[in-house]
């Protein structure tokens, strides 16, 4: 902007101003622009603090019903499309345009006017000026002046005056003024491009009520009503589409208010393959999709691979690799019963995003398989190898409705996970998505499988093995505590006690160790009044329970080794004993785990789904053009100063002498212009003196 007063702009005198003149002055005023910009700034900041692009239900959870409604009416969930926000933007465009309308004529005049009307007195008043009186004819001085101006890059006009004066009016760097025009025009151009890409037509339609929003998820496109679909159109949009491998889609989904609308595409996208490439340490390195574009309208087909940062553009549509997920993988599951007396293990084949029915102990349960992830990279605290992450293998998620009506979500790891040097099968359970998973740790046997634990559990669940373990325990306890004298007596009395042991085991499986302890305590209190007696009873019960559990475990270990008893294999190892401790902990956690089954993933066939973002931004080219103009304009404004030079050449009173007056003004940075003026003066000085000495020679010769 020039440093000229606003009077240079179009302005009519105060009296008798037309409405349009007042309006233009207001719209183009700096104060309005600043007010609008501040409002825009505040609105934009609100949009950063109040997270955009979340579903309305998430906002409802955050703010509660009252504030949710307040913010909704203010349009704060989609600030940048809110009508008041767009109105501010529109006003800004108008304001900038009006400002340009008012000032551009002045600016252009500045660029083209050489200001060749100045007199010597005005020039002498400038701070950068220098005068010479040389022994030259005016012709020579004019020649020197022109050469200097030209050499220093100043364009100039000469004006002869009546009294024989010649004024050279020069300037340099007038593209600086273009800078002003470019930068402000650029703002308008960018905003226009941005508004084009703001999909105003869609918003207009929505405001008019022509557009319905679909809120149901997971239904096929064919079932969506046409009022919620948009045909192929020239507008802008940004939608997402998830396509499993091997499948195709010709639509994309645009989020709108509390649901979405379906945008049709003029071509079909077939996903041939999706893959994730990994770094050596297991972290994802690249997400890639092989897409085949089938355009029936133009009878064209081609294949292209997209990855993050490398989208595909076809017919104005850009297809980005945005996310990925499961596309309906096939899972081979083994169902281990955790409760009841059922024998045997069932196999089940299920697909992700589908449901499976299982029959457990006469009850029907519906499993809903929700997700499968092939690689899970977890932080690893091992620093030796330099790796900080490790891929621990696949997980799958499912949900199941319990008998009490609750739906629980589960997340199971396929492979055992090493924690503190021991291996466990992990299964996480949570009552709702906003709670964290709590994990059941089932110890893995020496063969890193679930067999040993499940055999142990079987020996406790099923009647026969449990009875046998209980009886053997009862006999042992009777003999140990000296309550009988020989085996025969032990055998006779053991029946009743075994029953008690069995009941304790069943209670353990259903309610956990705490409940069993409390039950024992209750019986002890009821059964005896004497503390000594009570202690005896208590010890007896605990010993019985412990011995039964140990028997069941030993039987499981022996069965695993294929021998009759553990003494045949030389007793238990330290490892076996550790396993036993962990198994007891797992048993105690089973009631909290709630589910009657444990699902083991034994095999899978992964089908992935690629998450594509499909966008159309017809205004992009306009915005880029505006951006280039903005950058160019800024550099012109900052680094190409507009400077003017004048040189007044007139004949001196004494014959054969000429006076030359050089003066200049720089638009800004007086110090830098001062240096430049010095250089110009130096050159002019040299030329004048050279001409003078040459002329002197001519005179001599």
């Amino acid at each position, binding site marked *: 902007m020039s*440093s000229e007063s606003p009077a240079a702009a179009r302005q009519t005198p105060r009296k008798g101003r037309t409405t349009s003149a007042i309006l233009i002055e207001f719209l183009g005023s700096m104060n309005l622009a600043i007010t609008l910009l501040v409002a825009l700034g505040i609105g934009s900041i609100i949009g950063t603090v109040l997270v955009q692009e979340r579903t309305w239900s998430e906002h409802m959870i955050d703010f509660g019903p009252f504030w949710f409604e307040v913010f909704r009416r203010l349009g704060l969930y989609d600030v940048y499309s809110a009508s008041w926000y767009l109105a501010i933007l529109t006003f800004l465009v108008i304001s900038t345009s009006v400002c340009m309308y008012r000032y551009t004529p002045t600016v252009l005049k500045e660029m083209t006017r050489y200001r060749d009307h100045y007199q010597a007195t005005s020039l002498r008043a400038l701070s950068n000026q220098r005068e010479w009186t040389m022994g030259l004819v005016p012709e020579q001085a004019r020649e020197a002046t022109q050469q200097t101006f030209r*050499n220093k890059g100043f364009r100039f006009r000469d004006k002869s005056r009546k009294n024989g004066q010649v004024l050279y009016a020069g300037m340099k760097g007038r593209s600086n003024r273009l800078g002003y025009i470019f930068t402000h025009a650029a703002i308008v151009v960018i905003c226009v491009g941005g508004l084009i890409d703001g999909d105003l037509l869609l918003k207009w339609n929505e405001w008019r009520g022509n557009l319905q929003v679909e809120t149901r998820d997971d239904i096929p496109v064919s079932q969506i009503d046409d009022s919620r679909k948009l045909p192929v159109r020239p507008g802008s949009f940004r939608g997402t589409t998830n396509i499993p491998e091997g499948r195709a889609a010709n639509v994309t989904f645009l989020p709108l208010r509390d649901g979405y609308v379906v945008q049709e595409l003029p071509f079909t996208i077939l996903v041939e393959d999706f893959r994730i490439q990994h*770094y050596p340490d297991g972290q994802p390195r690249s997400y890639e999709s092989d897409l085949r574009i089938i355009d029936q309208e133009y009878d064209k087909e081609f294949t292209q691979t997209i*990855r*993050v940062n490398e*989208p595909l553009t076809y017919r104005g549509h850009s297809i980005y690799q945005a996310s990925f997920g499961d596309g309906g993988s096939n899972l081979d599951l083994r169902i281990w019963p955790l409760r009841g007396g059922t024998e045997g293990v069932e196999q089940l084949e299920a697909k992700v995003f589908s449901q499976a029915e299982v029959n457990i102990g006469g009850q029907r349960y519906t499993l809903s398989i929700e997700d499968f992830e092939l690689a899970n990279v977890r932080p690893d605290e091992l620093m030796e190898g330099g790796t*900080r992450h490790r891929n621990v293998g696949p997980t799958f998620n499912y949900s199941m409705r319990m008998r009490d009506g609750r739906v629980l979500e589960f997340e199971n790891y396929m492979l055992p996970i090493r924690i503190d040097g021991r291996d466990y099968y992990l299964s996480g359970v949570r009552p709702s998505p906003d709670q964290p998973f709590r994990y059941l740790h089932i110890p893995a046997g020496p063969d890193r499988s679930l067999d040993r634990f499940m055999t142990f559990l079987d020996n406790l669940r099923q009647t026969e093995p449990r009875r046998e373990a209980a009886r053997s325990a009862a006999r042992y306890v009777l003999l140990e505590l000296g309550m009988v004298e020989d085996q025969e007596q032990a055998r006779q009395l053991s029946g009743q006690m075994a029953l008690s042991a069995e009941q304790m085991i069943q209670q353990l499986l259903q309610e956990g160790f705490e409940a069993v302890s409390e039950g024992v305590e209750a019986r002890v209190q009821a059964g005896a009044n004497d503390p000594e007696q009570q202690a005896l009873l208590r010890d007896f019960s605990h010993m019985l329970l412990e011995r039964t559990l140990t028997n069941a475990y030993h039987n499981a270990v022996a069965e695993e080794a294929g021998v009759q008893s553990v003494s045949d294999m030389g007793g238990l190892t330290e490892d076996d004993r550790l396993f036993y401790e962990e198994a007891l902990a797992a048993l105690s956690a089973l009631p909290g785990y709630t589910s009657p089954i444990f699902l083991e993933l034994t095999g899978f066939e992964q089908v992935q789904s690629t998450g594509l973002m499909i966008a159309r*931004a017809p205004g992009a080219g306009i915005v880029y053009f505006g951006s280039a103009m903005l950058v160019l304009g800024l550099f012109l404004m900052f680094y190409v100063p507009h400077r003017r030079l004048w040189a007044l050449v007139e004949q001196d009173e004494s014959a054969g002498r000429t006076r030359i007056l050089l003066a200049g003004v720089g638009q800004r940075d007086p*110090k830098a212009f001062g240096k430049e003026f010095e250089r110009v003066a130096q050159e002019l000085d040299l030329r004048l003196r*050279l001409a003078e000495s040459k002329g002197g020679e001519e005179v001599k010769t």
Partner: protein
Amino acid sequence: MSTTQEKLANELKDHERGAYFRRLSAFDWIWALACIGGGLSAYLLYGEYMAYYEEIILALTVAWLIPQGWHWKAARPFTLIVGALSVLAVSIYPDLGAAQESFLLNYLLSSQSAIMWMCVFFLGATVLYFADLVLSGGDRDAFLGKVATAFTWLGSGAGLLGLLVRWWETHLHGPGMGYFPVSNLYEVFVLLAFTTALIYLYYEGRFRTRALGGFVMLVVSASIGFLLWYHFGQEARHIEPLIPALQSWWMKVHVPTNFVAYGAFGVAAMVGVAYLVRARSHPESKAAQRLPSFDQMDDLMYKCIALGFAFFTIATILGALWAAEAWGGYWSWDPKETWSLIVWLNYAAWLHMRFTKGWRGTPMAWWSILGLLVTTFCFLGVNIFLSGLHSYGGL
């Protein structure tokens, strides 16, 4: 022709159009050759791994470096020495283990050591500049001041060397795991520190005053403080390979231009602080006499904000162009993008007030400091407090 004429004609030659090039010294031409040579070697050695746009970036870097060195003479030995040291470091660094085994690497040249030296030099420079301001009695050639400037150069060199060697180290981690080291908060803080210092050194030379050094180095020291906390507290110095969204040549242009802007805004804000210090001091006091004149400080603030604003505009546009390739569109109203707009509007307003209303002086100094706060929120606050697509530089 007489001798006078000869003399005059000779002097006139100095004003001719090509005179600029004739005024260049032999070292200037050696510098140009070294830049071209460096660029050519890089291209010959690594050209097959470079995308088309990266080759253009290499060519433009050489094309920019040469006139930059001619314009700012001190940049030539600085760049040549840092370049030579980084080549040396790479040549003795065959694998990551060498960082502990080699003395040179362990104590000087590996990226960790170089960055630590940078911290030492910059913190020292801060102290020395203030000591110079207070103790040297306004002497422009005081020893303290010279050491302070030397420390700032050494710190900048160490920082640049640190990032260059880190670039090599990322490649040592494994095939295909290397990247341009400006991808996380740790790396960009190093970049910010020495970029701010270099911008300051340029203006220190142009304005021929060391009085503002301590003030500018305060913001550099704050960066160092954060860097050290991040290094020791959060173990952030480890090299992690790039996530897919950052694997793009855009990072080589978008991030550095942004940090030139942040550095310039930082210098402008600290000059604003110095301005206010002088404004609040008695005209006869030492502060008033030793700090530069109000006009000079005002001019410097303007120059830095103009530089920063120009580069910030370029950086934001580059960010939008990158977003159009990575995120689905050039503008997503992501918090980082939105706050960039706020910063841009703030400085545009500052410049408007200066140009059209002629504002100068104390209010502009305050505004310049406020601008740095807004910029800091855009740079750090968004990553720390707000969510969004730009969470690469998170804590």
